[in-house]
């Protein structure tokens, strides 16, 4: 009888590990699949995000639009109502990463016993803060949402680092005269588009590293004290049916279950168990020496739960409301930033900010690495939202991938016919640096690469006086404002490599009414 019980928890534990491994692999697989699919349309590679009730709730509150794909998040809510926070313990990729590193740190004896901090309420307060902000249309969820955080960190920091290491390895192979292996590996690596140059790659990587290293102080530090999705699922799981049952008769009060709990849920004593904190990893069941622990479905709600002091959460809510003006006093609301060139299909700036969750899907899928996380170009609110940096890449004319993978519709899904008509900015020529204009040399690389038909860059014959007084008549580029869509390939390919002689600014972008250059329509 006793053996049977321990076997049961062994099976449950193993299936939890299998589930964690499976969903983490799926997450990585979809991450790697978020690239040019050798065709025009990519599948639902962003599906993970649609199961995230936090993203669904916050983007709904801030934009007042429920993005249809988020109906999947109801499944997550439904599961939580029955089984509790299994999402955290069984499915969440960041949870898996934290769990894995906690385990490794323990095995390597880098940490002994989990410290207990009295910080459980933090994540609820953070959730309340984010929630209140979203009610006032400020969407901050992306910074701390675990899926956004993981995807963004992997895309912007981890994959580029791995790519760099891969190149070092290839160079090493080449030095060892193993060129055949090196060549095959390089050709194979072309099946993956790894964007390898990102602004803030170091910073975002450092934050991710911090999340991992926090596991040194206590396992799953992030999940216990910070994760706002965990907090939301915790609140939902107050109503959940699956509950722990400690058999007080056989319990020897060793406290092993509470010391080893991954969620600081306090299985012992039974009345103290916090239903909102249990992530259903079933460690307690397996570790219990007398098999006194069991989980049962029970309709009667438990009284004991987290104690959010009313004073504190009301204070946080007020703080949230007060914070909004602080986010909005930057100059970006007064005038569009010239460097803020959004992906084609991006909604109007206000709407865009309400929906963008800074997940980095668009930056991963961009075939040329041109989409980069904002620092201050879009204000504090737009931190880590995407913008084009045309010195790194350019917007590929027939590509609509970023609009297809955006999980919240901040970038409207476009068909290719629609996309090629959308202006994201306008090209300008710096005649002081452009070779034909200032030195009479033929060039017109920009004209050659201009992808529109007819071309938005035309050239005219001009007269240039050279330093020796002679006159040359080269062909020089001019931009047709009606045709230029601001794709930036001219800036990218310009042979004046340090500071290009042709560059894009955001003016004239289709999505904005204010940021216009030429008068349109009839009056």
């Amino acid at each position, binding site marked *: 009888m006793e053996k049977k019980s321990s076997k049961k928890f062994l099976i449950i534990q193993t299936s939890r590990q299998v589930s964690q491994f499976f969903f983490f692999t799926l997450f990585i697989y979809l991450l790697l699949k978020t690239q040019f699919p050798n065709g025009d349309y990519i599948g639902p590679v962003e599906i993970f995000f649609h199961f995230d009730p936090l993203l669904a709730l916050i983007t709904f509150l801030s934009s007042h639009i429920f993005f249809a794909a988020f109906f999947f998040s109801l499944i997550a809510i439904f599961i939580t109502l029955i089984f509790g926070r299994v999402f955290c313990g069984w499915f969440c990729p960041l949870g898996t990463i934290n769990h894995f590193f906690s385990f490794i740190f323990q095995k390597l004896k880098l940490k002994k016993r989990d410290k207990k901090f009295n910080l459980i309420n933090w994540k609820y307060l953070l959730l309340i803060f984010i929630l209140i902000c979203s009610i006032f249309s400020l969407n901050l969820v992306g910074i701390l949402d675990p899926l956004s955080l993981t995807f963004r960190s992997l895309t912007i920091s981890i994959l580029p680092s791995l790519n760099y290491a891969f190149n070092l390895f290839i160079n090493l192979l080449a030095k060892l005269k193993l060129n055949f292996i090196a060549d095959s590996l390089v050709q194979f690596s072309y099946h993956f588009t790894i964007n390898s140059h990102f602004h803030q790659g170091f910073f975002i990587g450092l934050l991710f590293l911090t999340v991992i290293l926090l596991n040194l102080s206590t396992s799953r530090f992030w999940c216990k004290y910070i994760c706002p999705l965990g907090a939301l699922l915790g609140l939902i799981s107050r109503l959940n049916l699956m509950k722990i049952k400690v058999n007080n008769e056989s319990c020897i009060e060793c406290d092993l279950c509470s010391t080893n709990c991954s969620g600081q849920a306090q299985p012992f004593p039974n009345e103290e168990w916090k239903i909102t904190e249990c992530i259903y990893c079933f460690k307690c069941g397996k570790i219990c020496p007398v098999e006194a622990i069991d989980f049962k479905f029970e309709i009667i709600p438990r009284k004991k739960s987290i104690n959010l002091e009313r004073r504190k959460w009301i204070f946080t809510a007020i703080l949230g409301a007060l914070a909004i003006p602080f986010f909005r006093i930057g100059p970006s609301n007064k005038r569009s930033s010239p460097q803020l060139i959004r992906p084609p299909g991006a909604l109007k700036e206000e709407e865009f900010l309400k929906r963008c969750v800074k997940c980095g899907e668009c930056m991963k899928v961009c075939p040329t690495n041109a989409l980069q996380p904002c620092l201050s170009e879009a204000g504090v609110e737009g931190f880590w939202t995407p913008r084009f940096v045309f010195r790194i890449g350019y917007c590929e004319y027939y590509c609509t991938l970023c609009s297809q993978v955006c999980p919240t519709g901040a970038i409207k899904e476009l068909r290719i016919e629609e996309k090629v008509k959308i202006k994201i900015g306008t090209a300008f020529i710096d005649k002081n640096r452009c070779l034909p204009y200032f030195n009479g040399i033929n060039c017109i690389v920009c*004209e050659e690469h201009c992808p529109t*038909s007819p071309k938005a860059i035309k050239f005219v014959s001009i007269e240039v006086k050279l330093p020796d007084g002679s006159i040359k008549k080269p062909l020089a580029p001019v931009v047709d404002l009606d045709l230029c869509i601001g794709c930036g390939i001219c800036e990218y390919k310009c042979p004046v*490599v340090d500071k290009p002689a042709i560059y894009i600014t955001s003016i004239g972008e289709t999505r904005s009414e204010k940021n216009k250059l030429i008068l349109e329509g009839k009056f």
Partner: protein
Amino acid sequence: MKRREFLIKSIIGGTALSLNFPLFSQIKTFPDLAMVKGEDPYKITKRAISLLGGMKRFISKGDVVVIKPNIGWDRKPEQGANTNPQVVKAVIELCYEAGAKLVKVLDNPCNQARRTYARSGIAKAAKSAGAKVYFPDPRHLKKINLKGEWLKEWKVFSDFLETDKIVNVPIAKHHSLTKLTMGMKNLIGCLGGNRSQLHQQIDEVITDLSAFFKPCLTILDAYRILIKNGPQGGRLSDVKLQKTVVAGIDYVAIDSCGTTFFGLKPEDLGYLRLAYKRGLGEINWEKLRIGKEKL
């Protein structure tokens, strides 16, 4: 040479000619240029090569062959910005039939390589014919002496150097700086580095490159030609159906012949004038023996 020697040699030579050795006469009857028109790009390519005497004339058994199509742009075949995939496929098949050990296909495109390779249809067509499709690997770039009159040193993909033969398979297109881009300009795709600087002396660069690489065979795909907004076009109205393939060894003659599809003269193109002056080929292509056929 003494008079007697001369007389003896001419008698021997004359007899040899009049005896009509089968091999000798066969080479003599091969045209310098083959120009085939027809509905199917695959068939006209094969026919053009067989008019030239078959691929065996150019490819020897056991050769490693690099085929250099134009895969420069993220465009579909019907937009006429890249070499027709069916033409590439036919050339690969012929190379293998002639006994080539390995046929490689690669280009250094202007747009992102993965997109151009896939959307041009060339990667798929080439793989189906058994060729190895390589993406340009920046590690293979080698700075070499190109022995040009103007272009002395530049980075070249070693795939084009460490090979027995290069077969150039360009497409005929409009280009605003050089007016037209065909076989000779296509070789810029063998280069790496900051290629956009080459525009400053484009005619000289193109001439130097052709003299350096000396493709053993050039097959100009003029099935769809881009008559405006080159070199990438976009609209179908930029494309004209010419339904022709021109093949031969003399790349100057082929490009000169190509100008006529656009209503231009060979002398209109700077690099053709230059190449002719340097004796790289014949600009008066009509003087050559031309094998014309319509399928």
